[in-house]
């Protein structure tokens, strides 16, 4: 173990954490002690972990505040569900189908990430944030009036209504405007979710610690200094943004294959904010923190379900309290004073004195 350097060890801990959690959950599932409510949460949990990790790549590593992450999730979800719906009679193996859907969703989201990233990344700070928000809302609104159908002569697209698709009698409407997609095969499961988390971690962690990742972090820390040593700002920012969008698209595919019906209205501003909360609470730029925060905050409202009407209220209070505790100067001083390390350190010193 000595030969491993610190980052490799750190990364292995992250992978190990996910694997141990997976094995533990599988054992509990076999033992039958997991409530059906929690079972239903397993796939969304994986979706949110992937979203949080991918958003952390933009917010934490690249240093740009993005408020439109749900938009990429939306694009990926619809693209993936579309493909699955088209091929569900041809390919019957669920795992092959979702693999195909994940690839398509990730690719389509990456294209959107690239197209949106080129103009957006010219802006900075809060202006960039508002434009990503705007794109997220536009994607949601356009998907809401988007109709696509398929018949013998090919694919028909319309932005008006179902009738204007002009489908033949044997035609089949797949994306139906505000009603979205129904009948997507339920191909997602916890194992595929965990595999997607591992792939995401592999991509993101390797990127962060590569030469490209160092360039991205250099731009975040000091744009002008990075530019002056010859780093191509646009290229590296776009790289982080596109990879993040593509992973969000994959998460969307996972999400869409867990639901019988999917509407664009699910991918609004609130979803983007939810994911941003995971990233900030987990620690900006800290990938492992994002995973833990996503898991805890997804489970929290469910664990508080006994409190019924008060659960979202408590969630809000916990959110504010956690933020004050972790980020305010007073809270940080408090943690410094009563941190475990320091308390342990003191007892050690005390022992030495004896």
């Amino acid at each position: 173990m000595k030969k491993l350097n610190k980052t490799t060890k750190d990364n292995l801990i992250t992978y190990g954490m996910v694997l141990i959690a997976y094995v533990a959950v599988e054992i509990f599932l076999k033992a039958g002690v997991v409530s059906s409510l929690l079972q239903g949460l397993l796939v969304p949990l994986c979706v949110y972990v992937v979203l949080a990790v991918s958003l952390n790549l933009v917010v934490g590593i690249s240093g740009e505040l993005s408020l439109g992450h749900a938009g990429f999730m939306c694009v990926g979800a619809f693209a993936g569900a579309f493909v699955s719906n088209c091929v569900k009679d041809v390919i019957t193996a669920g795992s092959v189908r979702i693999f195909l859907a994940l690839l398509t969703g990730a690719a389509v989201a990456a294209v959107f990430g690239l197209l949106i990233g080129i103009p957006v990344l010219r802006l900075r700070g809060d202006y960039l944030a508002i434009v990503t928000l705007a794109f997220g809302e536009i994607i949601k609104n356009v998907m809401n009036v988007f109709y696509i159908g398929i018949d013998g002569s090919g694919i028909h697209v319309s932005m008006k209504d179902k009738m204007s698709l002009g489908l033949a009698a044997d035609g089949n409407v797949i994306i139906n405007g505000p009603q979205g997609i129904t009948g997507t095969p339920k191909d997602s499961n916890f194992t595929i979710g965990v595999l997607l988390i591992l792939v995401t971690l592999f991509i993101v962690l390797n990127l962060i610690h590569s030469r490209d990742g160092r360039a991205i972090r250099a731009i975040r820390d000091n744009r002008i200094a990075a530019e002056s040593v010859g780093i191509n700002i646009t290229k590296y920012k776009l790289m982080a943004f596109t990879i993040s969008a593509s992973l969000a698209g994959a998460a969307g595919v996972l999400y869409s294959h867990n639901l019988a019906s999917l509407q664009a209205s699910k991918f609004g501003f609130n979803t983007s904010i939810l994911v941003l909360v995971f990233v900030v609470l987990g620690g900006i730029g800290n990938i492992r923190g994002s995973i833990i925060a996503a898991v805890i905050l997804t489970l929290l409202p469910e664990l508080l379900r006994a409190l019924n009407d008060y659960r979202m209220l408590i969630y809000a209070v916990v959110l504010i309290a956690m933020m004050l505790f972790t980020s305010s100067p007073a809270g940080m001083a408090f943690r410094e004073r009563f941190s475990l390390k320091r308390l342990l350190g003191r007892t050690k010193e005390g022992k030495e004195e004896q």
Partner: protein
Amino acid sequence: MSFLSYLINGISLGSVYAIIALGYTMVYGIAKMLNFAHGDVIMVGGYVALTMMLNLNVNPVIAILVAIVACTVLGICIETIAYRPLLGAASPLAVLITAIGVSYFLQNVVLLIFGSNPKSFQSVVTFGDLQLAGGSLVISDEAVVTILTCVIIMVVLTLFIGKTKAGQAMQAVSEDKGAARLMGINVNGTIALTFAIGSGLAAVAGILLLSSYPSLTPYTGSMPGIKAFVAAVFGGIGSIPGAFIGGILLGVIEILGRAYISSQLADAIVFAVLIVVLLVKPTGLLGKAVQEKV
């Protein structure tokens, strides 16, 4: 004539956005933070006014005043509890998250008290619609009052910031907090005052909005909140005339887009225009470009 009436409706809706955006932009200018709970203050103002009028049967004028006072106090409370402790925080995102927390908190408190069923708001303006050009152009009384209120608020606020001591203190704090403190300005007090004014304006905006669009739920505030934020950025965030122009333009684009292009795509059109404006002029219509020092 229908174009004119759409235009006036747009200006009226835009005036509401402008009043909300003023609150956003003032808080941003002084504290450099996005106050996502601002939209929910609008909703709280609406509920306070509604309760006063329906359950306590008081005069609408008194109901409006009570709503303004309640929101002002709420604004100061939010600032003291959730934002002031984070003023020296390392990451500006920390404040954004507490703002979201406050937003969830307000929505859920109201949800617990009033339930999720939409309540219908009764208009506070009752002098009757204006009939112009022999009855072919009808301007609703709410639109007239909204536009007038917005102009008055705009003028008073500009005078307040330019001419009074407290207003100049705001300008000083937004320029340089440290230097302002050295000049003997009470920085925390000034920030609290900004929050108070912004929240009071939100109450006014809420009542005007609900008088024209009378459905009130705990989530009523969030979409106008986002739109007003967009308006503030549109005009150049931190600039008061910018918020005014941005708000009016946004309202007009939204109503005209809804009337002539597509009612479902109206929001998408608003956001698309915003993107185009920001790409051409990255600091908004009236925003000042900050020179970077190397």
